[in-house]
């Protein structure tokens, strides 16, 4: 498409992400079809071969994540994408990647569950994404885009983090952010990254290398996990990202992410017109969670309203972050066709609770 050559394009969130992945140096994609992320493989199957990359439709999500593990072990920038059920199937592989310190990007364009559920947007995979749905003590950075522009931008960030910390990184989007089109401003593609010094390439002129997650000897696994824990602590210190909107003078704060945060912004504008001094804090990184700004705001504001498109998951992190005694309320819509709240609905909740 001609429009792709411009720096300003009008495009779907899923396509923006796929485009950015290539520009961030991703050359390998392994994935299995699922709605609502279909445009990502569709775009990459067309575009990757043009830049010398490889696209492979894997036979399953389990194969996908393990191909990611194999390709990632060579230091390649590699990604997969899926949704709900597919992401569940990847949990063992993600745990292995985390345990073996192999980077890679996993995109979850979230749909509603549990089970087959439906294909409407959802934030019901928050726990899975932020708590490590797989076994063992690990975390993966989780980035939550709020627009096609951020689908684009966060793909760059995701690869940065993945290689900086040698970890799988998840982008947790939702069906609306993935499917909607909006204007996206592109940046310069990244130059090729140097091969990391741990990458497997064949033991040519050096000792052989090994990437593994099995640590059987006494004390070995504990040491390894504590090393990783240091890494997670560093991530928690250095990498939280969030957006604040009209918080400077706010008496009330809404906390929401992804599509809900977008809608809530409009609600806040509406509420402000009605004289409610509300603001929004939008976590961009769900892990690391933006603890500090919430702590700060919670010391000042009268009430916090958490709005989620699930039955209440992020609210736990807000409670764990806010100062003791902060009034924290939850408004949720359980995801499903037709349950995305409107701006008026959220504004109504603000009215009810902040008045």
């Amino acid at each position, binding site marked *: 498409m001609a429009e792709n050559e411009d720096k300003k394009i009008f495009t779907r969130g899923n396509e923006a992400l796929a485009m950015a992945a290539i520009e961030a140096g991703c050359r*390998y994609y*392994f994935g299995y079809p699922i709605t609502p992320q279909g445009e990502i493989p569709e775009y990459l199957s067309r575009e990757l071969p043009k830049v010398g990359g*490889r696209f*492979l439709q*894997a*036979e*399953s999500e*389990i*194969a*996908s994540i*393990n*191909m*990611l*593990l*194999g*390709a*990632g*072990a*060579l230091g*390649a920038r*590699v990604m997969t994408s899926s949704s709900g059920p597919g992401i569940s199937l990847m949990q*063992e*592989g993600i745990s*292995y990647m985390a345990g*073996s310190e*192999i980077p890679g990007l996993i995109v979850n364009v979230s749909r509603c569950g549990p089970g087959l559920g439906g294909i409407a947007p959802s934030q019901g995979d928050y726990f899975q994404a932020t708590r490590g749905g797989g076994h063992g003590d690990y975390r993966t950075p989780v980035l939550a885009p709020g627009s096609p522009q951020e689908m684009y931008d966060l793909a760059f960030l995701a690869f940065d983090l993945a290689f900086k910390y040698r970890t799988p990184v998840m982008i947790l989007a939702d069906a609306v952010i993935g499917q909607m089109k909006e204007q996206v401003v592109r940046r310069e593609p990244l130059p090729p990254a140097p091969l990391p010094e741990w990458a*497997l*390439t*064949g*033991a*040519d*002129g050096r000792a*052989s*290398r*090994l*990437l*593994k*997650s*099995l640590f059987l000897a006494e004390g070995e696994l504990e040491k390894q996990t504590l090393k990783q824990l240091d890494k997670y602590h560093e991530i928690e210190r250095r990498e939280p990202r969030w957006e604040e909107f009209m918080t400077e003078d706010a008496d009330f704060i809404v906390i929401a992410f992804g599509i809900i945060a977008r809608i809530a912004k409009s609600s806040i504008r509406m509420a402000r017109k009605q004289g409610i001094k509300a603001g929004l804090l939008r976590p961009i990184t769900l892990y690391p969670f933006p603890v500090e700004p919430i702590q700060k705001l919670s010391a000042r504001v009268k009430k916090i309203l958490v709005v989620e498109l699930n039955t209440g998951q992020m609210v736990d992190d807000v409670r764990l972050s806010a100062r003791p005694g902060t009034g924290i309320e939850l408004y949720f819509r359980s995801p499903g066709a037709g349950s995305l709240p409107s701006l008026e609905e959220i504004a109504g909740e603000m009215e009810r609770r902040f008045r």
Partner: protein
Amino acid sequence: MKQVFSRPPELIDIPSHFCPGCHHGLIHRLTAEALNFYGLRKKTIAVSSVGCSVFLYNYIDVDTVEAPHGRAPAVATGVRRVLPDRFVFTYQGDGDLAAIGMSEIIHCANRGENITVIFVNNSIYGMTGGQMAPTTLLGMKTATTPYGRNFSNDGYPIRMAEFLAPLEGVAFSARVAVDKIANLRRAKKILFQAFQTQIRGLGFSFVEFLSACPTNWGLSPVEAARKVEQEMIPYYPLGIFKEKKETDHL
């Protein structure tokens, strides 16, 4: 006097963790010899799997990535797609490859990934303590078939080398044994052939090794080797089931 037999340098010089008389040790050595013969050490990426052979990387001195149980063929595919000019092999047990990893091995074979799969069929789950494998012979008692494997409950033992052979992507498929010297020498030749298949870019190559697990069979090493001959080979015939001579898809 000249040294006529010595440990290949690709086989790291440490004691092995295998039980006495376990054939994994033999198959490791043959693998190292093949790597040696074709000078592959520097360009090999191995994919280890989960089973008694999980420590492959402690013994074979090449770059290695550890795959989750059953997923080595998918991991190898990831490797292969990034570095198409390297030598890539997986080493997998029968639980790993023929039970949990069935989908991955078939799709990898069907894609004709240019890798070599070393498949160790000891008709049992060694590492986890002797449960039934997909390859366990009918009637055989294991930790989870205390009354003997029974077809109507547990299905038939599966012949992977034959089963995979018809797939278009498969360039080479064979079954060998290392229970005695003649079989072992033939096994070595066939393994070398499989390596060559990959080196020549012909596609997916597969060598099934019948292998003894004295520990979980409850037999002495010598008896166990005999069981390979007397019970396994009759059901799992040795031979080459597919052998492409040139690429058909380029």
